[in-house]
C-alpha cells in the first residue's frame, strides 16, 4: 500500500449502510481472540474465583482461619470440613480462602514493580544502546551469574524475615529477566521502519521512546509478566517454607504447605492441599499469559 492510499480515510463499502460496519478496535479484536482460547478463559475464570474468594473471605469462609477446634488432622470430606482440618484443628478450606489475601499480593506486587523498573531500564538500554545500554546490560549480566533462588533467599534473609522484605527481594531478582525481554523488543524497534520514519519526521529521541517504543514493547511485557506471576506464587511459597516470609499463624498457601511438614507422618494432605492450590493458580496464570500472547499479537491472532 502506498503512502497516498493510507492518507485517504476508508469509507464504508458501497451498498452498505454506514451503521452496519462493525467497529473493530484493537481491544475488541484482542478480546475476541482471547475468548476463543478455552484454556485462557478457564484460567481467567479460575483466577477470578480465587480473587473474589480472597476479597470476600470474611463473608464466605465457613470458619475462622486462626481459631482451631479439638477436631485435629481431620481427613478431606469430613462432615463440616470439606478439605479437613490441620494439626491445630483449623479448617483448611477457610485457611486456603484467607491465604489468597497473603499469597496473591506477595506474588503480584513484585512483578508489577519489577515490570515498571524494567520498562524504564529495558527501553532505555534497547533504544539508546551506546554506553548507557551497555552499562545497564553488563550490570544485569552479573545478576544472571548468581542463581536466582539463591540471590533471592540471600537478600530476603539478610534483610530479615517478613513479607515486605520478601517482596523487595523478589522484585530485585525479577528485574534482570524482565529487562532483558524488553531490551530485545526495544532493540528490534530501534531498527524498525516506523521508528526510522519518526526520526526522519524530526521527532526527538525522547518522543520516539515514549510514543513509539514504549507502546510497542508493552504487549510483550504484559504477556511475560502475567506468565511470571504464576512462577512468583511458587517462588513466594518457597520463601514461606524457609520461614522468611509471613509468620505463623497468618494463613498463607506456602506457609500452610511448609507447616504440613510436621504432620507429614499422620496427615500428608495438610501439606498436599495448599501445594495443589499453588499449582492450579500458577497453571491458570500460564494459561492466561498464553492466551494474552495470542490475543495481543496481531500476527498470531486468528481473525
Amino acid at each position: 500500500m502506498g503512502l497516498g492510499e493510507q492518507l485517504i480515510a476508508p469509507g464504508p463499502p458501497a451498498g452498505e449502510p454506514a451503521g452496519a460496519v462493525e467497529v473493530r478496535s484493537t481491544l475488541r479484536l484482542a478480546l475476541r481472540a482471547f475468548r476463543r482460547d478455552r484454556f485462557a478463559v478457564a484460567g481467567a475464570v479460575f483466577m477470578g474465583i480465587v480473587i473474589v474468594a480472597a476479597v470476600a473471605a470474611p463473608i464466605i469462609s465457613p470458619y475462622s482461619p486462626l481459631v482451631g477446634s479439638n477436631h485435629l488432622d481431620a481427613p478431606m470430606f469430613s462432615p463440616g470440613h470439606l478439605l479437613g482440618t490441620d494439626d491445630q484443628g483449623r479448617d483448611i478450606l477457610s485457611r486456603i480462602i484467607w491465604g489468597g489475601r497473603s499469597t496473591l499480593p506477595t506474588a503480584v506486587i513484585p512483578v508489577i514493580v519489577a515490570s515498571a523498573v524494567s520498562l524504564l531500564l529495558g527501553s532505555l538500554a534497547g533504544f539508546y544502546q551506546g554506553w548507557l545500554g551497555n552499562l545497564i546490560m553488563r550490570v544485569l549480566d552479573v545478576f544472571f551469574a548468581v542463581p536466582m533462588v539463591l540471590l533471592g533467599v540471600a537478600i530476603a534473609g539478610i534483610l530479615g524475615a517478613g513479607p515486605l522484605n520478601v517482596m523487595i527481594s523478589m522484585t530485585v531478582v525479577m528485574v534482570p529477566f524482565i529487562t532483558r525481554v524488553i531490551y530485545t523488543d526495544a532493540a528490534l524497534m530501534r531498527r524498525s521502519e516506523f521508528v526510522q520514519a519518526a526520526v526522519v519526521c524530526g521527532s526527538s529521541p525522547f518522543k520516539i521512546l515514549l510514543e513509539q517504543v514504549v507502546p510497542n514493547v508493552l504487549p510483550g511485557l504484559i504477556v511475560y509478566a502475567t506468565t511470571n506471576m504464576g512462577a512468583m506464587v511458587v517462588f513466594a511459597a518457597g520463601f514461606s517454607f524457609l520461614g522468611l516470609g509471613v509468620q505463623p499463624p497468618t494463613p498463607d498457601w506456602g506457609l500452610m504447605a511448609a507447616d504440613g511438614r510436621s504432620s507429614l507422618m499422620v496427615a500428608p494432605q495438610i501439606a498436599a492441599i495448599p501445594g495443589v492450590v499453588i499449582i492450579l493458580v500458577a497453571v491458570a496464570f500460564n494459561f492466561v499469559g498464553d492466551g494474552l500472547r495470542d490475543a495481543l499479537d496481531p500476527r498470531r491472532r486468528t481473525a
Partner: protein
Amino acid sequence: MLAYAVKRTVTTVPIMLGVSVLVFLLMQLIPGNAAVAMLGPAAGNPHALAQMERYLGLNRPIAVQYLIWLGHLVHGNLGQSTEYSQPVAGILAQRVHNSLILLAASLLLSIVFGVLIGVVSASRPGSVFDRIAMSACLVLASAPTFWLGLLLLWFFAVHLRVFPEMGMYTLGQHGFFDLIRHLVLPALATAAIPIAVIGRLVRSSMLEVLSQPYVLALRTRGLSTLRVHMHAFRNVLVPTVNIVALQAGFVFGSALYTEVVFNWPGVGLLIYNALLARDLAVVQATVLVISLVFVVFNLAADLVRVAIDPRER
C-alpha cells in the same frame, strides 16, 4: 574453536569481579551494620560499637572495605563464622563437595529423563503417552520444589519405606550404595521441574525439526524411524544444551529447598541454618562460591554449545 574458548574464558573475569561486588554489597543490606548484627544487644554501648566497627574495618570508605575483602578472598580467606567460630572456608569445603554430588545427580536425571520424555512424546504427538506426559510436565513445572520434596518424602520414605528419610549416610556407614540410596529422593525432587521444562522444550524442538524437508527426504529413502530420529536429534541438541544451561541455574538454587527437606548436609542447608543464626559471613561466602561454580558451569555449557554447533564459530 580454541580462539573462541580463550576469548569466552576471558569474559568470565569481569563477570566474576562483578559477582564479587554484588555479593560484597549484599552485606550492606544488613539492617544497621555488621557490627550491630554481631554485638546484638551490646550494640547499645557506643564504645563497644565503635571498637567493633574499627575491628571489622567499617570505619573505612566502602571502596577500601571492598578491596580489603577482595584481597582476603584471593588468599582464600572467606571470613569468620560467628556460629561455628571457625574460618568459613574450612566449613564450606565439605559442604560444597556434598552439594556438588546432589547437583550432578539432579542434572543427570534432568537431562536423561527430560530428553527421553521429549523425544518419545514427539515421536507420536497426540498419543496417550504424549498427552499424559505433557499434562504431567505442565503441572510439575508449576510445583514448588520443597512441596515435591515433601510429597516424595512422604510417599517413598514414610509410606513405602523404600528410601531413607534424610541425611547422606546411615550412621556408621560410608558406602557408595548407602550414598545412592540417600541421594535418590533429593535428586529426584530437585530434578522434577527441570525434567518437565526440558521435556517440553525437547518435544517442541523435535517436532519442529521433524517437519523439515530433509527429514521427509530421509523418510522417502526408506530409513527406519529410529535412524530418522537420530538424524533429527542432532539438530535438537543445540536448543537442548541451551535449556539445560538455563535449568542448571534453577537446580543450583532450588537444591537449597531439597537440602532443607531431606537434611542433605550441603551448602543449601548451611545457608538455611546460617540465616536462622544470622551468621551472615557464611551466607555471603556461600552465595559467592556457588555463583563462581555457576559461572564456570555456564562457561563449560557455552563451549559445549559452540563445539556441537559449527554455525556459532
